[in-house]
Structure formats: C-alpha cells, structure tokens
C-alpha cells in the first residue's frame, strides 16, 4: 500500500461522507468533488495519463453540471424543494434539505426527508467500508500472489491465510471494493428515496462512482474506451438529475396526457 493510495482512499471516503452529511449544499458539492477526484487515484500502479485524464474530466464535468441545481435553488424564480442551506425552526432544530414547515417532513411527498447528520452517516460509512473490505479480502482478485498460489496448489477455494490479511486489505483492488461498499451504503438510500433535488443527485453520482469502483476492483485494468464510457455515464447521470431537478412543474401535471392535435 502506498501513501498516495491511502490518501486517495481517505479523501474518497471523507468526501463522500461530507457530501451527504453536510447541511450546506456548497460543502456537499466540495465533498462530492473531492470524492470523485480522489477515486480516480485509487489504483496501484497509477493508470495511464490518458485514463486518468478521462476519469478526472468526467468527475469534474459531472460536478459542474450539478452546480446548475445549486444555482437554480438560490435564484428567486426557482420553485425547488431543496433549500440551499438546511433551515432551522425557531427551536433551533434542523429542518433538513426540504426546509418545509414541519421539522424533517417533506410536505409534498408526505414522508420524511432524511437528514441524518455527520455521526450517523460516518457510522454507516464505516460499516459499509468494513463489509466491502471483508468481501474484497475473500475474493482472490486482490493480489496476484494469492491467485498464483491458489492456482499452483490446485486449490478450488478462494480463502486467504491470516498472514496475507494486511496485504489483501491494503491493495488497490481491496480498497476499491471497500470504498465501493462505503459509497453504496451511504448513498443508496438517498438516491432512491426523497424529493428530486441536489441531494438526491449527489447521492446518485456516489452510487455510480461506487459501481465504477467495483468494476475497477474486480478487473483491475480497463481500456480507454471503457473509461470513456464510465465517464459518460457519470456525466449522463448528473445531466439527468439536473434536468429533473430544475424542471418547472407544469401547472396541470395531471394523470391524463395532453392530446397534441
């Protein structure tokens, strides 16, 4: 495990937690940027400059697109649910991203708008990381030496010995899978439920990044074409989330379609 690998993993994890735990959308966007950029460096050895450039471009472009949601929310004309900063009621309690009248209740959806705070999100992240590292350690993709040893002995099992544990956990592949589990653990819920807005969009991006880390952890190498497609997926998810978040609801968004005659 190199210092760069460890630093990249740390920044990825911290950034992801900050994305969803922060009550300020600006901090959330900074956290998302840090997480996506650092995830590009979770590899040993470092990928080609071309591959790195593609990953970074996709990450930065996706965040730049999401800025449109943040900008829209701060404009006077934006009828968007998510407030730029989570509001507090007169008693000082957090209202969450929806900023609706009742504490933590999303009046439009009739359900709770989740806003867990730093400690719960960090705890979920830690649990996800532990689960991911455990799964990664049990998979013989993590180190070539383990794979070669299993092949030489004709073993059909995918276990590892205790002495290899530190090596297995600290490898790029193991860290990728661990970080992927962390990202999906904290982001899957906000990505699937809640009103369509900046927070849900950022959660979707974290899920996409998590899936990409699984891909890299399992395959360890990827072609430029695959990296381009992965970056395109990130940008597409960001664009889709932005398009859905900033759309003005039609005055008669009813069940019956309009007959275009």
């Amino acid at each position, binding site marked *: 495990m190199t210092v760069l690998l460890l630093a990249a993993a740390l920044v990825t994890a911290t950034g992801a937690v900050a994305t969803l735990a922060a009550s300020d959308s600006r901090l959330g966007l900074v956290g998302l940027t840090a997480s996506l950029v650092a995830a590009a460096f979770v590899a040993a050895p470092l990928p080609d400059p071309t591959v790195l450039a593609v990953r970074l471009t996709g990450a930065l472009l996706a965040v730049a697109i999401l800025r449109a949601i943040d900008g829209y929310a701060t404009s006077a004309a934006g009828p968007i649910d998510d407030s730029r900063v989570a509001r507090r009621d007169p008693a000082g309690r957090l209202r969450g991203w929806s900023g609706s009248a009742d504490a933590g209740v999303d009046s439009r959806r009739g359900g709770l708008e989740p806003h867990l705070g730093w400690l719960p999100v960090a705890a979920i992240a830690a649990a996800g990381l532990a689960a991911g590292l455990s799964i990664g350690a049990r*998979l*013989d*993709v993590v180190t070539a030496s383990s*794979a070669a040893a*299993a*092949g030489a002995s*004709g073993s*059909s*099992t*995918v276990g590892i010995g205790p002495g290899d544990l530190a090596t297995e956990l600290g490898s790029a592949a193991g860290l990728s899978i661990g970080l992927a589990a962390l990202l999906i653990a904290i982001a899957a819920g906000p990505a699937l439920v809640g009103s*369509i807005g900046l927070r849900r969009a950022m959660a979707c991006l974290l*899920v*996409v990044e998590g*899936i*990409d880390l*699984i*891909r890299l952890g*399992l*395959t360890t190498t*990827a*072609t*430029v*074409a*695959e990296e*381009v*497609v*992965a970056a*395109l*997926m990130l940008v*597409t*998810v960001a664009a*889709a989330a932005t*398009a*859905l978040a900033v*759309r*003005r*609801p*039609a*005055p*008669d*968004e009813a*069940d019956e*379609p*309009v*007959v*275009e*005659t």
Partner: protein
Amino acid sequence: MTLAISIVVAALGGLVALAAPAMGPGAGRAGRILALVAALACAALAVVTPVGDLLSVGGLRLSATPAVRLAELGWSGALVGLGLIAAALRIRPVTAPGLVALAAGLAALAADLPAVAFGGLAVGGAAAVLVPSMPRYGESRRRPTGAAAPAGVVAPATLAVLGSGLLALVLVAWARSPVGAAASGAVVAIQDVAFQSAVGLAVLAMAALVAVRLAAIPAHLWAARLVGAVSPIAIPSALAWGSAAFSIVAITWSEATLGSAGAAIDPLDHWLVILVGVGGLALGALASILHDDLEHVLGYWLIGAAGVTLLAFAAPTAAVVPWVADWTFGIAAIATGFAAWIVVVRWSFGTHRVGSLPGWARRSPGLAIGLVVLLVGSVALPGTSLWSSRASIAAAALPGAPGTIVTAGAALASLVVFGRLLLVGLARPAGDVAAAPPERIGRLVLAPRGWTGGGTGWLVRRGKAMVVANLALGLDLVVVGLCVLGLLISALGMASAGA
C-alpha cells in the same frame, strides 16, 4: 470505417440539434432540419456499410455485423418517418434524442467489449427517455408542445434505463475478473459447485436486468406510466429499439459466459425465467387487448413481446442470438409503424380512445391499409423471420408442444390486438370520427380551396397550397411507409441487412 462515420454522423447530428435551440430563435428550426438530414444520412450509410466493416480505436473493436446494419436501417428509417410526422403536425420532435440513442445503440451492437456496450446503451437510453419528456423541449412560437411528462413518471423511467446498464457493468466486471467465468486460467476450478452456481446466478441476474430494461412484467410500471405521459412517437426509441439492442448484447454476453465456464443454466433458474416470460407475454397481451387508449395498447403490446425475448434466457445458446435479433428488431419496426399510426389517428379524429373511434377505417382508407400491414407483420406468416424467430425461441425454452402453444399464443395475441382496432374501424362512423373535418382525412386534393392563380411566383404558391391541402394524405403515406418498413424488417429480418 463506414460504420464509424454513421456513428459520428448520428451522434453529432443529435447533439447539435439538441443544443441548437439555445443558440437563437431560428436555430431551433435549423436544428430540427439538421436532425432529419442526419437521420437520412444514416439510413443511406446503412445501405452501403459492408458486413464485416471493422474499426479499432482505443482498445475497442467495432465490427458491422448484420444485426448492426439491420438496426441502422430500421432505426434511422424510423427516425426519418417520425421526424417528418412531427414536423408536419408541429408536435414535440424526437429525432435528435433518437439520433443520440441510435449512435449509442450502433456502437453497443458493434463493440467487442460488453462494458462499453452496456454503458453506451444506458447513456443512449437515458437520452431517448428523458429529452422528449422535458418541458419546453422542441417548443417555439409556432409549436406549442403542451405539458411535459410529470417528474414522477420520468424519474423512474430514467432510473430503470440507467440502473439496468450500471448493474450490467458489475456483472461484466465479475465475469472478467480472475474469479469470473470469462477469465482465462481462472483461479477457481471450473468444476467447483459454488462456481457453477455463481455463473448461473450471474446469467439469471442479467435476465432480470433485461426484464427491467424491456419493462417485462412485473417490472413494467415505469413503461406503462411513460407511454401515457409522452408523445407516441417517442415510444419507439425509448422502449423498442434501445431495448432491442440491450437484449441482444445481454443474450450474447450470457451465452459467452455460460460457454467459457462450461456451465449450463440451473433447472430452477430455467423454469423461473420461463414463468416470468410466459406470464409476461400472457398478461401483457391481455392488458393490450383490454386497454382503451391507444398509447397503452402499444405499450402493453411491447411489454407482452418482451416476455418472448425473456424466454431466450432460459436456454442461452449461440443459436438463440440471431433469433433474438430478428425478433426484437422486428417488434421494434412494427412498434414504430404503430406509433406513427396512433399519432395520425389522434390528429385526424381528435381522440385516442378505441371506444371513440368507430368507423375510422371507413373514413380513412389510408390508415386502414397501414393497420392491415401492421397486423400481417405482427402476426407473421410461417416462413417469415418474425415467425421463425418467435417459434425458435419458444422451442429452445420449451421443447415440444408447450413451445408450440406459446408461439401460437403470441401470434394470436397480436391478431386480437390489431384485429380489435380493425373491427372497430369497420363499424359505422360515429361521434368524433364522423365529426372529423375533411381536411384531416387523407384524400387527394387537386384544387385547393381559396387559391388564386396569376401573379409572380404562382407556381410556388400553388405548390405550397397543394402541400397544405394534401397534408393528411401525406401523413397517411408516411404512416403506410413506416408500416411497410416494419413489415419488411419483420418478414426478412437480418436477411434484409445482408446476413
């Protein structure tokens, strides 16, 4: 090289057309024209693309197989026809997002890397679903496009399309890993029981993703709501063509995964897939027969057809792959003609309810011809590509009498769906149909009303007046043209693309 040119033309044409409205008041119209021209160019390039055309770029190999040529021919032809209808009726255009989806679909079908294929299909599918649903898309002073689809409808649809592609990437990554099925010198012994189970589960998971993407029952809600919220001309690109490409890539991957692992599908998985496939076919057909609004008739007909596609995953062998290609592209081509027919019926008679359309065929013989062509194409005569592929897929999953029953049932379902519409059309015209103005019914008008000759430029004025007066006839001709294209693709399949 020709294939690469097609992909670039489609992608650039679509993206420029999408960005054009932001460039100025007149740029939107120029963008729509550019999109039509790009679609025409793709159709022309499809004719001249040689089978086996190969290109290598960035570790990726693109080869023009018969399936690629068939997709290019049919899909670009569909975009041209639907684009002309949208232009004539001044409704929300779908050519630009369709071109983006076409470029992604062609690249996916031609690519030798499944990860690139699934990722591209997810991106293209999202464009086809999301863009036509956006408020003010395609809107101009002379083109009020009406209310957009609700976010609660569009978001699940986008999630289904993107999510199925994303999760497919995980399966592909597993297969390529040292513990996966496709890696050479796999660490785990192939005979390992757990490994065999893992391979079977991976194929089952891929079948589940196909079910989501194709909106097969029970994962059909997103599509059922989408068809009621968007214009019918957006449905082919969103639900039919992109889904066809996805299912072909998925079945190819499944067959390769099982083959490289030396594994076979588990009997439990086999029967589970059959249950979902046959159940989806039956329930989709039933819903299509019972629904009153035309968009849902089309949507559920597609959902029922997805059940047949799913049966291919019960026995994913190398022989099944071309059958799936013929079946899915044939269905997509028929669906395109049907979507065009629905739009013109809505415009002509001012309604989209089957119960409000008695006598439509008597008033509009052109549309009647179109529906008859669709009926013949969808039921399919023995010996045609659609019939053979449907029968072969069913026989591979359910050998013997059960497969024959499924084949006959699928054909009968299409007969009832389209036959019901035809029977309603042969009744005495009443209500909205009887009250439809003559200028909205397809008849040849040689002497336009209110036109006066003489003066400078009378020929141009005469031409314009003729076009306006015969708009309904022109629309009928485009609809019949799309229906005939659907019939040809369903009848000939990949043979029409030089297979």
